[in-house]
């Protein structure tokens, strides 16, 4: 049982991290970025190429993080321009369709040019015992990085004025504007942050399973589900939703087995959305 819960937490942390980059952009700007998974894949490819070029792991990862942030910035400066002119549901719809188009372009390009390229970071060494359960070193390192990322985000949103400014825009855009915060600027920052987070997702994921050029769509879809379950715009919501869904998935997998566990995970997500459309820790409807 302990083993299951630990495995669930490891998987859940991955799910939670997956959702944070998406949930921030969605919560802040009502922009649904369907190319989110593709940004993660692009970053993974950049890391892989940097390592092929002879860079050590750490600098390569840094280059990947910068690449993710740059894609986010680029998205904000180009494709999302017309999106910002709309509001509410039309804005979400247009952003969804435009970024879906972008995801085709990125997917098509990567699968065309680099069909066999994949990023997998091997963390050496054997299993480590946690509470008497042997855990893979790779997933532990990934979980540690994820926890640190969450801690960093928590501190950022709680104690820095920039973080507070961003949160105020998520809660009430008009009010934030009135006290002198420019939502547009916050949005650009969040898109850069979201790109970096997507790169972190790619890097931590590659410690557990290889990230190949086709991984984009499934990353986006899972991120979307966890985002909605956690509540739009809530990092803590994404964290808890990820862990809960992760534990549900692993426990279901060990007691019922096989494919049903994924269906149970999906059903749990659907049920949460239906019972609490605002999500576990949603800020608003």
């Amino acid at each position, binding site marked *: 049982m302990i083993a299951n819960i630990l495995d669930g937490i490891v998987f859940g942390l991955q799910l939670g991290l997956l959702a944070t980059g998406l949930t921030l952009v969605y919560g802040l700007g009502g922009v649904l970025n369907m190319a989110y998974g593709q940004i993660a894949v692009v970053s993974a490819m950049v890391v892989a190429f940097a390592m092929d070029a002879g860079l050590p792991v750490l600098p390569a990862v840094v280059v990947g993080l910068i690449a993710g942030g740059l894609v986010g910035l680029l998205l904000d400066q180009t494709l999302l321009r017309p999106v910002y002119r709309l509001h509410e549901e039309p804005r979400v719809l247009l952003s969804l369709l*435009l970024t879906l188009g972008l995801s085709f372009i990125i997917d098509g*390009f990567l699968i065309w040019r680099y069909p066999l390229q994949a990023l997998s970071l091997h963390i050496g060494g054997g299993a480590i015992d946690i509470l008497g359960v042997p855990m893979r070193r790779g997933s532990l390192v990934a979980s540690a990085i994820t926890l640190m990322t969450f801690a960093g985000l928590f501190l950022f949103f709680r104690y820095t004025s920039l973080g507070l400014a961003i949160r105020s825009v998520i809660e009430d855009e008009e009010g934030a504007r009135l006290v002198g915060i420019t939502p547009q600027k916050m949005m650009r920052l969040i898109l850069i942050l979201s790109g970096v987070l997507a790169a972190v997702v790619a890097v931590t994921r590659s410690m557990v399973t290889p990230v190949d050029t086709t991984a984009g769509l499934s990353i986006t879809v899972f991120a*979307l589900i966890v985002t909605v379950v956690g509540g739009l715009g809530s990092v803590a919501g994404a964290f808890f939703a990820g862990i809960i869904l992760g534990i549900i998935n692993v426990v279901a997998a060990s007691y019922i087995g096989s494919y049903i566990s994924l*269906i149970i995970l999906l059903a749990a997500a659907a049920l949460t959305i239906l019972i609490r459309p605002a999500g576990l820790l949603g800020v608003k409807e």
Partner: protein
Amino acid sequence: MSQQLTEKIDSSPIGANVAPSSRSLLSLLIPIALIGILLALVPLWLGDSRVMMGVAVLGLAFVCYAIGFNVIFGSTGQLFLCVGALAGIGGYGAAILADNVGLPIIVSILLATLAATVVGGVLSYVAVRRSLGVIFTGIVTLIFSMSFDTLLLGISDLTGGDTGRMIEAGRGTFLREQIPPYYVMLALVLIFLLVHGLLQRSYIGWAFRALRDNEVAAELAGIDVARYRVYGALVGAAMLGLAGSVYAMTEGRMSPTTFGFGEVDVVVLVMLAFGSIGNLFGPVLGAVTFTFVDELLIEFGQLRTIAYGVLVISLFLWMPNGLLSVLTSLWRRIRQK
């Protein structure tokens, strides 16, 4: 943008008449007959090639999917991202009922269609009851699509898992010949168009337009918005299930990718973006053009995906109402001169 999407139907000449008169019936029947005649000529052109006829049949199946999706999303504003899954319930359902249970083909197709209809209705009912918006309906139905896909891989003794399964029923009949399946699918297309057209002209279509233009106003005017949304989903899901099962029967084999999200839902979205969402004939224009272009670009492989990405982005940026509405407004401008 949903506002823009909905404005167009009222300004289009097709479906503009609310009162069912003989003139409006003719204005529905003549275009459908023209489409029927044009598409019926395709086998004269491609009939010699088995491969090309397969492409043409798949193209018509996509016309059917696009019409079904158009009824649900275009007419009642419910973003159902489970087009492939509903068609798959039809396809796999019909195969399992015919082969594993041993029912006659027609009965299996009808039962499988019924199953898809019920599932579509339940999804819509739940979404409407919980008053989920467009995006949340999209996400819940997307989750349903993924569950269905997982289920297909899971019960591999019935579905053949990843590699898919063959259908024994129908082997040796006209369903597996080179040209007849094309006309079977064409008949479906024409029936679907007629049903959707008549629906638009009836009081139900009137309610559809009202609830799409302004939901609150429609509710205040005494229209049971929830009920008409579910009606729309039932009709659309029935079309998807029927098209999926008939297509599977003519094809004789299927795999999860036959009804996959990326392979069906995404493509249908692109087709409708190209045609024109909400317009009766948008799906035909979109799906036929798409099939044609797709076949032209087939040798470019992944470059096609890039081209579709560019296409989707430019379509939604510069003509969010689709090609058909651009054409109709052009036509009107020419006539006014």
